[in-house]
């Protein structure tokens, strides 16, 4: 059946597959966008600082990374060719593939020596690639010739890929080291006024303050709510509280932001005034502050934690509960010693996912926390989270391609990586939990 | 008696089974696995035309699997794979490039629990017809009426054809499913314990219907009730642990079975 015929007979399947394939395209699009512009940001930053000037069109080909990439490709193609075609007869290639043993020893020795002779590590690694490819080809041909099955082992490919990644990382840190260092290690974020500086840690600190502050509020309340709903509450109350939680989850974040700005902010200021009067903090409090944001984000993620934890608790088989009660444990002992332990990983998954939600929360935080990037432990002063920085920075038409525009992608990539990691962990834990019950 | 010992008593079922009547389906040496677990071991079986063939056996013996294999319903289970041959005339059902739609059109199926579509009675019966024959409105009306009459349901639903199929009683629903199946004029009707979810009166109606259907169709029925098999079938196959133990005329099986296991089963000593 030809390909066209297949298409014709399976139109529905092909179209549906394409629709689901768009998910991959979207993900690739997101990653491509963020990564591409972030690299631009770092190279532009490094360039404006005068740390390096990198001429891609010439140096890119001759650089170690280029060679590494080329040789990696070679390994891959060679492996493909060998698994596809058989080289049974002896050919002229054999002189190269199977030299006398001492030649191999000499080559290996040279390999070691060149690390001391060549002044770049990358070139050294590239020669290691050459050596590996050479021996790989030889052993593959050998195997074919003596009738052995070619194993599916991808060990060699993995090793060379590992070398390639190391080389890439090395070249990135060589070229972008300064920019990366400034971005990830310094604490002053000032992208607008000269002298500019890009230390993302001040944004990160506020983000974490808000996210963990929100967890401190939402975890006890949310988990408590879940326990109460699944173990204690009369059905009539559940019928009221559950829709309420859904309603809380459905309220737009910008409305929460307004709520924080109008209502929570002044309350926090009163608390701050008390702190200030006692000399616990140095500066008078402001209406916009991370505590304000933490409270409002806490309220926002409360329904998420509550409903997911409740699902986890409900998934615990009834036998466990009954078994514990049959032993004479009280309801509260059963709840805390059996139910919570049994559903612990489900609850933890909900907390991780809620943390990711809190880190990614934008509008409420922008309105509640403020727009001044500072690195301070005083949580009563205006600060700025990563999301808030992006929202504030793009609030209008930015000239594309300039460093101010590129910063948001670097921050966005960092944010994306953090939330994606949290989501991956959370979903993995959740899947394991679902499998357990 | 241990299971191994019982298995030893099962004769090699790959032997040639001959029947006098014309053959509709021929199953040859069928092995089937669910993942690593083998569910059928070398089953060979002829199905006679215009007759009722019953498959009996204890739960989990593979009779439903065998039945679902006859119109490749097992393909819906991803982990299922098989080896062997089922043929219908010169059409090979188990062939790699077999047209599943054509096979299922020729070999209809009625399921354990009545499962009418959530549509009207009329649409339930007419759906398959519309799909395969693209009839005009009048033709469709005629086909629906004929099928409902053949399924002995016409008298009960003639004036409410446009009510939901799910609003009928269990027995009526099952007869509706049969009407739906015979509307597309299959050659074979497979029935997977069609009466297990029904009360005795509905069961009697279905059994009567099966005897009626025999005139036009070949019926293969899986049942866990031996009395039902004795009542409706012409041929009976007894299956045990994925093997076909014995296959013969129903009278022979229920009066004088060759195999010791069969004898013990039909006299109710195990299973």
């Amino acid at each position: 059946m030809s390909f066209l015929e297949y298409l014709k007979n399976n139109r529905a399947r092909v179209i549906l597959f394409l629709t689901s394939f768009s998910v991959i395209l979207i993900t690739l699009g997101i990653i491509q966008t963020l990564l591409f512009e972030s690299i631009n940001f770092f190279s532009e930053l490094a360039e404006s600082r005068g740390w390096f000037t990198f001429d891609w069109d010439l140096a890119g080909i001759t650089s170690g990374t280029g060679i590494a990439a080329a040789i990696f490709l070679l390994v891959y193609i060679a492996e493909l060719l060998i698994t596809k075609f058989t080289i049974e007869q002896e050919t002229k290639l054999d002189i190269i593939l199977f030299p006398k043993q001492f030649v191999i020893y000499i080559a290996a020795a040279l390999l070691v020596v060149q690390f001391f002779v060549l002044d770049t590590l990358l070139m050294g690694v590239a020669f290691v690639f050459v050596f590996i490819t050479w021996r790989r080809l030889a052993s593959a041909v050998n195997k074919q010739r003596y009738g052995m099955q070619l194993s599916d082992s991808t060990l060699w490919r993995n090793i060379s890929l590992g070398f390639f990644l190391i080389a890439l990382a090395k070249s990135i840190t060589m070229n972008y080291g300064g920019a990366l260092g400034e971005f990830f290690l310094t604490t002053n974020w000032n992208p607008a006024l000269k002298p500019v500086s890009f230390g993302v840690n001040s944004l990160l600190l506020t983000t974490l303050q808000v996210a963990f502050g929100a967890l401190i509020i939402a975890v006890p309340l949310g988990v408590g709510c879940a326990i109460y709903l699944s173990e204690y509450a009369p059905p009539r109350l559940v019928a009221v509280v559950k829709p309420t939680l859904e309603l809380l989850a459905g309220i737009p974040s910008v409305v929460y932001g307004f709520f924080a700005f109008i209502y929570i902010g002044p309350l926090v200021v009163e608390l701050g005034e008390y702190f200030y009067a006692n000399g616990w903090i140095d500066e008078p409090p402001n209406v916009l502050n991370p505590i304000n944001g933490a409270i409002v984000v806490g309220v926002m993620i409360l329904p998420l934690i509550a409903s997911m934890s409740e699902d986890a608790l409900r998934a615990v088989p009834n036998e466990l509960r009954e078994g514990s009660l049959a032993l004479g444990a009280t309801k509260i002992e059963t709840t805390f010693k059996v139910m919570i332990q049994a559903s612990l990983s489900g609850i933890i998954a909900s907390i991780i996912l809620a943390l990711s939600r809190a880190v990614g929360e934008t509008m409420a935080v922008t309105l509640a926390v403020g727009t001044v990037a500072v690195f301070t432990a005083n949580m009563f002063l205006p600060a700025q989270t990563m999301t808030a920085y992006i929202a504030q920075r793009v609030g209008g038409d930015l000239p594309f391609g300039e460093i101010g525009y590129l910063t948001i992608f670097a921050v966005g990539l960092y944010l994306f990586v953090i939330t994606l990691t949290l989501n991956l962990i959370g979903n993995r834990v959740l899947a394991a939990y679902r499998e357990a019950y | 008696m241990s299971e191994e010992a019982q298995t030893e008593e099962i004769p090699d079922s790959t032997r040639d089974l001959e029947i006098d009547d014309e053959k509709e389906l021929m199953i040859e040496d069928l092995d089937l696995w669910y993942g690593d677990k083998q569910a059928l071991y070398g089953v060979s079986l002829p199905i006679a035309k215009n007759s009722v063939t019953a498959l009996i056996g204890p739960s989990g013996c593979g009779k439903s699997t065998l039945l679902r294999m006859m119109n490749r319903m097992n393909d819906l289970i991803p982990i299922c794979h098989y080896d062997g041959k089922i043929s219908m005339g010169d059409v090979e059902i188990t062939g790699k490039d077999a047209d599943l739609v054509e096979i299922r059109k020729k070999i209809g199926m009625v399921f354990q629990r009545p499962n009418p579509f959530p549509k009207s009675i009329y649409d339930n019966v007419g759906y398959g017809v519309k799909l395969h024959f693209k009839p005009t409105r009048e033709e469709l009306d005629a086909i629906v009426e004929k099928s409902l009459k053949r399924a002995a349901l016409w008298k009960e639903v003639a004036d409410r054809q446009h009510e939901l199929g799910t609003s009928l009683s269990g027995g009526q629903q099952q007869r509706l499913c049969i009407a739906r199946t015979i509307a597309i004029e299959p050659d074979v009707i497979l029935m997977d314990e069609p009466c297990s979810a029904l009360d005795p009166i509905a069961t009697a109606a279905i059994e009567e219907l099966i005897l009626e259907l025999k005139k036009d169709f070949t019926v293969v029925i899986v049942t866990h009730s031996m009395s039902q098999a004795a009542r409706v079938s012409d041929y009976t196959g007894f299956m045990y642990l994925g093997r076909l133990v014995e296959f013969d005329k129903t009278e022979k099986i229920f009066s004088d079975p060759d195999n010791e296991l069969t004898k013990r089963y039909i006299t109710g000593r195990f299973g």
Partner: protein
Amino acid sequence: MKDIDNLQKRSRKLRDFAETMGSSGLAFTGLVGLLFLAILVWQITAPTFIDGESGEIPAANEFITESDYEMEWDYPNTDSNGALTTDAIVLEISWDGGDEVHELQINIISERDIYEDVYINESGLSTNIVEIGRKTKFHLYSSLTEVVLVIQNSGPVPSADETGKPLVSSFVIEYDIAVVYDGGLVFEPLEIIAYATLIFLVIIYRAPKSNILEFMHKLVGKERMVLAIFYALALVTTIAGGLSVPSTLAALCWILAARMMSALIKGIERMLHSGRKLSEVSRLKHSISNRDGLLMWSSMLLVTSTLFIPLEIYIPFLTERYQDIFSPYSSGIRAAFYGTIWVMLIAMISSVPISVGAAIYLEEYAKPTKTTKLIQALVTNLAGVPSIVFGMFGLAIFVKQGGIGWGLGPSILAAGLTMGVMAMPIIVLASQEALRSVPRSLRESAYGVGCTQWQVTKDHVLPSAMPGIMTGSILAMSRIMGEAAPLVVVGATAMIVFDPEPLAGLFGGNVNFTVIPIQIYFWTSEPDPAWHAMAAAASISLIALLVAMNSIAIVLRQHFRRRLN
């Protein structure tokens, strides 16, 4: 022996105490959510009261004179090489009335063009940054009647005037009627009766009482008359109330009450017809048709009434566009409303078919290959990606020109597509859930009559999963309706004085647009408290819209369920 008894008694007491404390503590935490919600609703509505009650809002038709000083600098923030300058423009402002001299320093801190509004009043200055085209403009506004003197001390020379002096002009601005004011609970008698009737009927529906039903029984056969009376009352209420919001809502109450009455009467008739007695009231619940839908709508109406009536929402708020920065009370959310609708429509059209297709593929067609697993994992994790990241995706793909950018500009089309991408994983997950819950037997029976896989999916699986899919889609839509972050990135602006054009990105035209959450965001960022009241009003409108969407989802689900069973 006695000691052990005592010990046991004491430990039991302790245990009981712990039991009570524990459960009541948990109950307390469970109810905190409710409390938060109550505070939220109260506080959102609170700012809308404050102004009206304290009487700070100027009465209608009161004129306030303002002076407007306008200066323009052409590209003052770049020098001849195009590099950024950080020269401060220092303006000195003084007026006759005050004995103090205000000095204002404005730093050009951004490479962007800035439009700076500076307000001057007796108490001092406040600033607000908004944006405008390719020129940097400073507007000085004063609410003083005196002439304000502006002297520029340093910075680039303004281009507005050849002599280097700023252009001075003056104009008059009119304050409009307050959008939200506390009119108290003003009810017409008919309206009160309408609400009372509706509440009464809701209670009857929830817990039927036999003696009341006996009274209703007398109305059997007179349904048309009852309906006519109620509809007439609805008409009278609307006309008598002068088409105001409360009267319209009350008229809706009458109409719903009429429907409920007729459903009740029919139910009673049917019950008696089938030989039941009225005392068997629990039976009634099953015999009344459309019970859930009616109850839903009526309770929704009551809730929205309690929200809207005390606020006396001024209708122009819903029908007016944004006016300008001085007249909060005559601005409205018309443009934002249209923007929201268009963005949602485009998001829906672009994402629902693709998402449902993807869900069908993953649930019905896909074999468990690596690709399938990858797609599944991606869907699950995309659903958790922060919305602002989707905004940046939209900015790079849909808004930007060049590279992989489509160059739609900051338009409704780009915003809709971005929102569609954001909604996709949510819809896919919900649809998968719905498809998974379709029973196996249905698929088998369809295969049994010889359907192809596509026919099984199209004719049987999809219709059965439809309620779930629709509910999921509408919920996803309601989620993106409240989402502002991606649109901030895509480039929605708040100051829109025209109705947005949905296809402007493709065919040219003015691409600017706004949506309700964006309005709330920008209005909250304004320093003037009057705008906060506007933000509150917009919040309430948004929540009302969301509640309406969710109700539609619930009603649809009920409808389909009834049809299927």
